[in-house]
């Protein structure tokens, strides 16, 4: 789950990591006074806001309200602005970069920092980026901060502040179950203070059961995506028109690859994962119908999700709703015979080869929508 900047900064503040003074609004009238120059920042879960016009500056109450009114409800790089963060404008002397991310290769947190902040980190040359794997058994220690600030060419009080922030980044990463904590830019002000001008955080979805504070504060999902998430189904919208229901991520991707070999493209994919509940299958099928594909392609290789469980769920779904589009089914694995019987009782012929089923699905799609 990606956090909005204002949410990440609330967490930073709670951990004692310096952030500019600010508050969040949902209406321009919520701005009551402007004592210092402020930054009016649209809260969207995408980078490059500044360039896209999502960040404005104001010196008076009137200017701030006008800027906020212009941003609220507008779209920044395709994301609708619902919240705005009003923050004291910093007098910027220098900009740095710092982050902690889960590194897949070492399976440990990776601390990265650079004196070249304020630009995309991908555009910074490798030799200008400090990288240090942190062993969780010892955690962050001051020597890492000394190495990091030396690498960045910082000294004295600024080095001390940056070291402190590096330690806080690691603390936040660990205690908040993050996959990513990133500050870009980390700003050195004209007054000599180092603080987080921006804040990016991704919290590990699988840890949300122990973080009740994020309930109802999740990222912007389409209504159908929200429903899927509530039901524990992986639901992804793509740009074709074949609706794919499969069990398991790898098999789902292999299904998309197989469709593409016959010239078909998936519009939605829905991964049932491991389930033994027909009810879950039924509700997944309802979601799929709601997404209005040209044809529904069901590809099940039974294991922990048994084939007949899926067939029963499908039968229940079909008996309670008008599907309106052809269904192509491929069933294999645990209890496939039972599943094939159930499906044939509702008029669906299941095939056992993925390639054959993919070819049929594309053919049906072309009958419905026309095409090459």
């Amino acid at each position, binding site marked *: 789950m990606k956090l909005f900047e204002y949410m990440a900064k609330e967490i930073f503040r709670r951990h004692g990591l310096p952030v500019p003074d600010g508050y969040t609004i949902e209406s321009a009238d919520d701005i009551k006074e402007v004592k210092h120059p402020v930054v009016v920042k649209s809260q969207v879960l995408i980078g490059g806001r500044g360039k896209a016009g999502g960040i404005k500056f104001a010196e008076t109450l009137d200017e701030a309200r006008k800027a906020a009114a212009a941003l609220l409800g507008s779209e920044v790089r395709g994301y609708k602005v619902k919240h705005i963060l009003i923050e004291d404008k910093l007098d910027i002397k220098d900009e740095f970069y710092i982050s902690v991310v*889960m590194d*897949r*290769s070492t*399976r*440990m*947190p990776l601390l990265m920092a650079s004196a070249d902040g304020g630009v995309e980190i*991908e555009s910074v040359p490798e030799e200008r980026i400090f990288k240090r794997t942190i062993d*969780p*058994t010892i955690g962050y220690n001051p020597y890492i901060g000394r190495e990091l600030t030396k690498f960045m060419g910082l000294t004295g009080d600024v080095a001390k502040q940056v070291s402190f922030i590096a330690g806080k980044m690691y603390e936040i990463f*660990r205690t908040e*179950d993050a*996959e990513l904590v990133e500050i870009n830019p980390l700003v050195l002000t004209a007054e000599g203070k180092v603080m987080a001008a921006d804040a990016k955080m991704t919290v*590990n*979805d*699988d*840890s949300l*059961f*122990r973080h009740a504070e994020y309930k109802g504060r999740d990222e912007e999902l389409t209504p159908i995506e929200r429903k899927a998430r509530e039901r524990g189904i*992986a639901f*992804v919208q*793509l*740009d074709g028109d074949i609706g794919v229901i*499969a*069990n*398991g*991520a*790898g*098999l*789902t*991707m*292999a299904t*998309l*690859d*197989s*469709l*593409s*070999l016959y010239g078909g*493209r*998936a519009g939605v*994919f829905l*991964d049932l*994962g*491991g389930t*033994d509940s027909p009810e879950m299958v039924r509700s997944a099928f309802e979601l799929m119908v709601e997404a209005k594909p040209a044809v529904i392609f069901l590809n099940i*290789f*039974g*294991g*922990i999700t048994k084939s007949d469980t899926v067939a029963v769920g499908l039968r229940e779904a079909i008996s309670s709703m008008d599907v309106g589009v052809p269904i192509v089914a491929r069933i*294999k*694995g*645990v209890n496939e015979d039972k599943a094939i019987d159930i499906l044939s009782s509702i008029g669906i012929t299941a095939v056992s*080869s*993925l*390639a054959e089923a993919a070819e049929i699905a594309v053919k049906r799609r072309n009958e419905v929508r026309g095409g090459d």
Partner: protein
Amino acid sequence: MAIIVDENTRLIVQGITGHQGQYHTGAMKEFGTKVVGGVTPGKGGQEVVGVPVFDTMREAVGETDANTSIIYVPARFLKDAAFEAIDSGVKTVVIITEHVPVQDEMEILMFAQRKGVRVIGPNCPGVASPGKAKVGIMPNAIFMEGSTGVVSRSGTLTYEIVNSLTEAGIGQSTAVGIGGDPVIGTTFIDALRMFEDDPQTERIVMVGEIGGTAEEEAAEFIKEQMTKPVYSYIAGRTAPPGKRMGHAGAIIARGRGTAESKIKALESAGVKVARVPVEIAELIKADL
């Protein structure tokens, strides 16, 4: 021979009294696995499909001389169960549980490393060595004993590929599902190394998917250290960037983790890469 599990495997099932635990204990016994005990706290003294249940792992290992455990407990209890397994004296721990918090995974692997325990998973279908033992949830019927090793990040896609190998008359030495999470106990390289050293295995099928750089790292290893031929399929050739394709690890982020990059790395290491799963069997047959 075979790798990780074989006729010497003595297995404890953690979470044996749950629905999945019971069902798969039965299926593993049918496969020929020596399931010597199960653990569910508070249910010690019971029996599940003829297998004695214990309250703790330490007790179970002490009574049965087990060397392997498989874990089915829900994600929120997984860290505790995995620590208990690693601390109990078994040498191999297979974690089936999905949706495990990534930082829990990290802590589990650090402890396992210190204790010299091999972890498979989490979020994986387990390991099967046909004719010897299965520690996992893969369907029994798809396997056939033989000389092809299979290693895969996926669950059901592993079944798909093993099934197509069997249908083509190509038997397997061991099939290992290493799991689809970004942080996992046994990597492609670990499995490839074991297959390279296993006399029964003559060739390896490596099933990857988009996301991360594990396949690229494996390609490097294959080029430098493998003598046995490797065949591969990479799922997600048609997946768009920025979308998490079901697995936590299956995402093309910041231009990294594309299928093209993986296929290119593998092909330059001499690996034959299939476009769709069923093609793997055809590629192998062409070389026989």
